[in-house]
């Protein structure tokens, strides 16, 4: 297969149904950068950057998730383009990587992006999904975020094989020539956003350009949230199993860790992951991964627009619930029962279980009754409610005297 052809194309099958067009890029093996173990001077000369060992496999995991959930996305998966440049370590860990078309140069990216845009410009009800993992920098003069392709740091201007995120987004805006372009666009950039010391001295950064951005009078009415793995001038990290922390957090959220009711007033309509719930869930999941990895990565969200659903879940996701009874002397004499709508007891918590009480419930709304042993007349029983929402719902039960 030609590397620029969609690795998946269901347009014929979907017919007139809205579709999602994905562009997934994972660049690990930067051919002009030194290996991680190279001499410090050599690394410094190359802007402090080395070849990576996690973006390509992270991209494949995102691609697999898209394919797995292809009919549960906000629009069914129609096309998917995958540009990969895996490291030997990733191939050793996942030999399947050898079977994918390889190559994520600037030229390849520009061509794939152009074809992806053409596919996405047919119907305003279509959806786009971009995931880019690799190196990225923050420009010193323009504050633009630049993602770097496989041939970054080739001879010539340092950033000529990079692309400004703002240019990608601007080129996907509605205009006369692409009036029907998808109005819902999701972007995920899993890269660092630091500014290498050398870049601060550039009087003018010569960044590569993948398309002309054309003036228009059309209103830009897209919902196009842009999630980044790092804050401006922040770093992004990878964890175990050749997977970036951001992609781990993203996939955990998409699989239900950022689940939210489709309609808060009517839980029977099901559960989904929306932009709003992802914006809330990503930092929480990333904090957990940070703690494990000893990292301090913080995601950022631009052009936040909470409304669009990204993905519909098959069932209410599981939620870790922690119930804390206060004051301390109420704990030995209080039992806590959690009831569902049908008045069935979903958990019964109390001594001798270790306090605070932990359990896992299906996401939903519950009634909570804290019953105090009648012998402990100094305390009064209490009723309250619990909204169990992923990933974790704490409940503080203050027992009155």
């Amino acid at each position, binding site marked *: 297969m030609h590397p620029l052809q969609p690795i998946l194309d269901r347009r014929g099958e979907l017919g007139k149904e809205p579709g999602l067009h994905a562009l997934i890029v994972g660049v690990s093996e930067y051919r002009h950068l030194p290996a991680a173990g190279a001499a410090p001077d050599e690394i410094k000369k190359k802007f402090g950057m080395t070849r990576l060992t996690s973006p390509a496999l992270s991209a494949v995991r995102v691609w697999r998730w898209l394919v797995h959930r292809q009919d549960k996305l906000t629009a069914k998966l129609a096309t998917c383009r995958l540009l990969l440049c895996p490291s030997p370590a990733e191939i050793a860990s996942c030999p399947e990587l050898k079977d994918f078309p390889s190559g994520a140069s600037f030229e390849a990216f520009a061509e794939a992006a152009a074809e992806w845009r053409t596919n996405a410009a047919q119907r305003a009800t279509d959806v786009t999904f971009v995931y880019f993992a690799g190196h990225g920098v923050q420009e010193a003069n323009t504050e633009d975020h630049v993602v770097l392709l496989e041939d970054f740091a080739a001879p010539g201007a340092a950033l000529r094989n990079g692309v400004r995120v703002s240019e990608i987004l601007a080129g996907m805006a509605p205009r006369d020539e692409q009036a029907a372009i998808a109005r819902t666009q999701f972007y995920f950039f899993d890269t660092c956003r630091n500014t290498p010391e050398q870049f601060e001295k550039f009087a003018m950064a010569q960044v590569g350009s993948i398309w002309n951005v054309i*003036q228009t009078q059309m209103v*830009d009415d897209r919902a196009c949230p842009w999630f980044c793995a790092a*804050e401006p*001038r922040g770093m992004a990290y990878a964890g175990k199993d050749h997977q970036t922390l951001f992609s781990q957090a993203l996939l955990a959220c998409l699989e239900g860790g950022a689940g939210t009711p489709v309609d808060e007033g*009517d839980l029977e309509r099901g559960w989904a992951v929306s932009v*709003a719930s992802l914006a809330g869930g990503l930092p929480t999941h990333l904090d957990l991964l940070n703690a494990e990895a000893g990292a301090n990565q913080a995601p*950022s969200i631009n052009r*936040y627009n*909470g409304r669009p659903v990204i993905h519909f879940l098959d069932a209410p996701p599981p939620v870790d619930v922690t119930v804390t009874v206060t004051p301390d002397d109420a704990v030995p004499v209080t039992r806590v029962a959690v009831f569902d709508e049908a008045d069935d007891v979903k958990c019964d918590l109390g001594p001798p279980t270790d306090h605070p009480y932990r359990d896992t419930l299906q996401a939903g709304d519950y009634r909570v009754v804290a019953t105090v042993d009648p012998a402990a007349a100094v305390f009064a029983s209490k009723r309250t409610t619990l909204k169990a929402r992923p990933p974790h719902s704490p409940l503080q039960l203050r027992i*009155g005297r």
Partner: protein
Amino acid sequence: MTGQSLRIDTRATLQGRPGTHAFIVGVDHYPNLPKDGEPDTDRSFGLRQLRWSVASARAFYRWLVEEYSNPAAPLATCRVLASHGEQPAADDPFADVAGASLDDFLFAAHDWRADAALHPESVAIFYFAGNGIQVSKEQVVLLMRDFGQPAGGMLRQAIDLSTLVGGMAPASQRSSIARTQLYVLETVRVPPVSFTYFASTGTTPVWDLELPGLDDRSTTILHASSVPGDVNRAGPSRFARALLDALNGSAAVSIGENENGDPLWAVTMVSLSNGLPLLIARGHQESGHDDMLTLSTGGSLRATPINFLKHGPIVDVQLEIEPPTAAVGGHVSFTNATGQAIVSEKVDTIVPRTYQVPAGLYTVAVTIPGGQVVTRFKEARPPHSDWKIRLT
């Protein structure tokens, strides 16, 4: 520069503790733009005098002074610039403020940033109402009172929002700058065809470009824009009313309990971003107008509370029962978290009923004729909740 911009100053009381530093600009009168009915000049681009900007800015100012509640960062300073279209009343709090020229703006912005840079837990709020140019989704240019002068660069009396926001980023010289920053803009927008991306660089920089540090701000930018000639009524705009409605509780969320176990409610950066579009959409349905609201955030989006409510908000709840006739002659009750029945009444209609109840989670019990009871948990959530109970 005439008049003073600093209207509120409690810095001495706060003694270096975090505070909220607000900067409010309202521009109705543009001396270099034509009046209604006058022909365009070569630098007016269809823009005219406005009648709602100062009123909107004043409404926001009054809300800050009278309603804003943030114990972690109480209102410390508020700077105001206003270009009045009509002579202000003597008791107008904006009567003698500086007039929103480019110079007025630059001086006030300088002082505002200096105050905001004293504590990272402070809050910086910027509010602008007036004419603007939306060059792209991200690039918004704000036009000062003296915009449209016949000489000099076309955008010399204009400010590029991105430079304003960029200059408020943490930097080595301002490592303690407020990390919570809210920007609210309401502009009449010029179709960007008049300007190229590069032409807009002719705006006046608010401050010198410095290399920022790690940008760990929680920044929310709310930008509402309408086309020239749309509603130009005197008084606060629809957007300003929706914003204040949101801040007063319609965009509130529960943020836990106080030491007595009573629920705490606040409007957070996230809940404002989620709730305001709903209020605007509802306003569109009622008015038939369709202003464009662009929401964007930078840095990390955090649910930082920006206004604490004294009481839980009251929510309009619409209850619909399916099938509609099944419960007629039966009974419905809403029981709150503590077991208190808030609503208990006979069902005597098949059309959806609307109730006003305190925000929170309820047990809704519908008793159908014959005695069968269907129970559902439903949340009354600002600004409006639709509850559907299916009896099948």
